[in-house]
């Protein structure tokens, strides 16, 4: 309790910034924000009362928005990471440290405003029952934990704890609103499981060298992706490709099969986003390929320095194919297990080709260094955010239009023409400039 009061005082003091003019502006701004949130919640509440059957959709939308803000909030530079003071210094059990961190994190204007919003909604909307409130808070909590996991890369011993918490929340949420929310809970739970696998692979890869000897702790591989790329340079492609395949596909493939079994009727409607994401190279590209130079900047810039533009692209493709083939075969297996249709193999083929081209251009034309340990989905760099969005949207569009072959091929042709133009005018022509700017930016 004393600690809670201490943190509250600390937070208030930081919020007011010693009572200067800036501090009072903040207070005024926060009061205005509070008013906006309250009015917005009242408005949403009344809207909910008049929506009839579509109430659940709006509640789901509100939850998704809160979740998106929670994740987004984590990537503002002044967002407090797991305070190092809580982690190594105090000889407390991990659960208590987590509790302290939770208090520290939740005592922020953002979470207070979100809670106020939900409470006002509870008072004004009939459809927003206490069960719905509980579900919304669970949903928020799960994304809070996810954001924390993404943020606290180095503290690997906390990961299993946080994952267990998140899975428990996911299970609770799924129990409360099984059918409506399962399609969201399942992938998030998958992401959390993936984080644990990542951390294990990372730790293993970071500590062993070519000769199989342990490296000095803390040295060596800086990021998970760098561990994989280091394995590629060490010419261990088969083992690496298998690890990648297992990590990136199997867990999600199992999830997809399970989800589809339960929701067969919605296979071609609500679930097609999931299908497009997980049965495509999106996970692979999102993590490993977009912003490739960022993971091992020294290796990539040296390669670019000593290769012609075409040779660099060829080298990239050679590595990409090693990873993509097992990934693609797994995806194909899953797709054919669910439905035998010619459009899926066609989609897969083009999705993998397009993702390779997109990934290459994104990573080469806008490289950015990655320095943190567990950079899941590499959200930290602008390159990756932009790259992931473009790749994701494009793959989904391709999946969507795979139903109408005419449109599918029009989009594909347009994409390939644009890619060729970019290759010729932006990449090949400006290659030397590109190498220099890459070196300057990422080293």
């Amino acid at each position, binding site marked *: 309790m004393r600690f809670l009061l201490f943190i509250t005082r600390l937070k208030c003091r930081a919020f007011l910034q010693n009572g200067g003019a800036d501090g009072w502006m903040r207070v005024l701004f926060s009061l205005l924000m509070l008013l906006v949130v309250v009015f917005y919640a009242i408005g949403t509440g009344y809207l909910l009362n008049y929506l009839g059957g579509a109430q659940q959709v709006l509640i789901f939308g509100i939850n998704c928005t809160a979740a998106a803000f929670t994740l987004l909030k984590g990537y503002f530079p002044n967002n407090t990471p797991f305070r190092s003071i809580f982690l190594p210094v105090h000889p407390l059990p991990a659960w208590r440290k987590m509790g302290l961190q939770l208090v520290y994190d939740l005592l922020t204007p953002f979470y207070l405003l979100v809670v106020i919003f939900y409470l006002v909604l509870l008072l004004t909307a009939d459809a927003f029952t206490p069960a719905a409130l509980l579900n919304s808070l669970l949903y928020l909590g799960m994304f809070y934990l996810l954001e924390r996991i993404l943020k606290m890369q180095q503290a690997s011993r906390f990961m299993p704890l946080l994952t267990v918490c998140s899975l428990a929340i996911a299970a609770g949420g799924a129990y409360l609103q099984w059918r409506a929310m399962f399609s969201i809970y399942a992938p998030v739970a998958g992401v959390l499981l993936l984080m644990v696998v990542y951390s294990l692979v990372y730790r293993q890869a970071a500590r062993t*060298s*070519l000769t199989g000897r342990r490296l000095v702790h*803390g*040295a060596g*591989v800086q990021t998970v992706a760098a561990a994989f790329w280091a394995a590629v340079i060490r010419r261990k492609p088969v083992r690496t490709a298998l690890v990648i395949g297992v990590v990136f596909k199997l867990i999600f493939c199992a999830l997809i099969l399970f989800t589809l079994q339960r929701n067969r009727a919605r296979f071609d409607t609500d679930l097609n986003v999931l299908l497009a994401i997980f049965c495509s190279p999106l996970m692979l590209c999102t993590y490993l390929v977009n912003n490739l130079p960022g993971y091992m900047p*020294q290796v990539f810039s040296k390669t670019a*320095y*000593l290769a012609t533009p075409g040779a660099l692209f060829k080298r990239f493709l050679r590595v990409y194919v090693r990873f993509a083939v097992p990934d693609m075969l797994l995806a194909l297996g899953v797709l054919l297990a669910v439905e035998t249709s010619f459009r899926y193999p066609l989609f897969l083929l083009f999705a993998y080709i397009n993702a390779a081209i997109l990934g290459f251009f994104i990573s080469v034309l806008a490289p950015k260094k990655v320095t943190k340990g567990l950079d899941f989905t590499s959200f930290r760099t602008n390159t990756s955010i932009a790259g992931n969005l473009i790749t994701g949207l494009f793959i989904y569009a391709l999946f969507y239009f795979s139903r109408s072959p005419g449109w599918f091929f029009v989009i594909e042709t347009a994409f390939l023409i644009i890619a060729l133009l970019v290759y010729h005018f932006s990449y090949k022509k400006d290659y030397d400039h590109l190498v220099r*700017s890459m070196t300057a930016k990422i080293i």
Partner: protein
Amino acid sequence: MEGHIISMQGITKRFNGKTALDKVQFTIEKGDSVAVLGRNGAGKTTLLRILLGLLQQTEGTVLYEGQPQLTLAFRKKTGFYIGKEYLPEELSGMEYLQFLNHLYNGGRLRSDEELRGLMDYFFEGADAAGKAIGAYSFGMMQKAGICGALVNQPELLVLDEPFSGLDAFSCKKLLAFLQQYKQQRTLLLSSHDLSFVEKICNKLLVIDAGKVCYYNTMEDFTVNGRNSLEESLFRLLYPQESDNEKISWLIE
């Protein structure tokens, strides 16, 4: 132009409007061993980076054997080490050399034994080949970087402060190596260690505030050895009287 391996013509570099190099002009002949000297922040590393094509100059051109230097041939014939930030921390020393060897000529340039021999010479038995570069000390990183610069048996070797961070024994080994190396190839190095510079280089390029103050032979600079290099350099860069008054003021 004949005999010129490098020719820098009117090189100017500005960072956000601030001039780091101002119309730098000089040529390096084949077989020269040139030392780039100057105070901290004078523009030495910037100059080396521009020469290597790692940094875009604002104005001017760099020629390699009479042609613009941004060719693959230039890059493959040049070896450089200009800072530990260019070393991949994820790889071990030996893996780094193997990777470079593969890059330069698909691995055919040097055998693994040769690479190990290169490492053994500089690391002198220290178990560095299988250790991640990220776990190296600063001096070991310097040595790994220098080994990396030598993988392709370069015609032009560019080193930025190669002696800094090295122990006395390693300095002696590097000195012996460079003294032999300069007999057959071209060398360009920046250093603050004047005793080593004196033993290795035949030409000096002194830069101050982005401008070339001096570019000629070592003999000319030291008036045929009558003055020491240190003395001559101080005379050029610090023409004022001693700082004794300032030092007394600082101490008091």
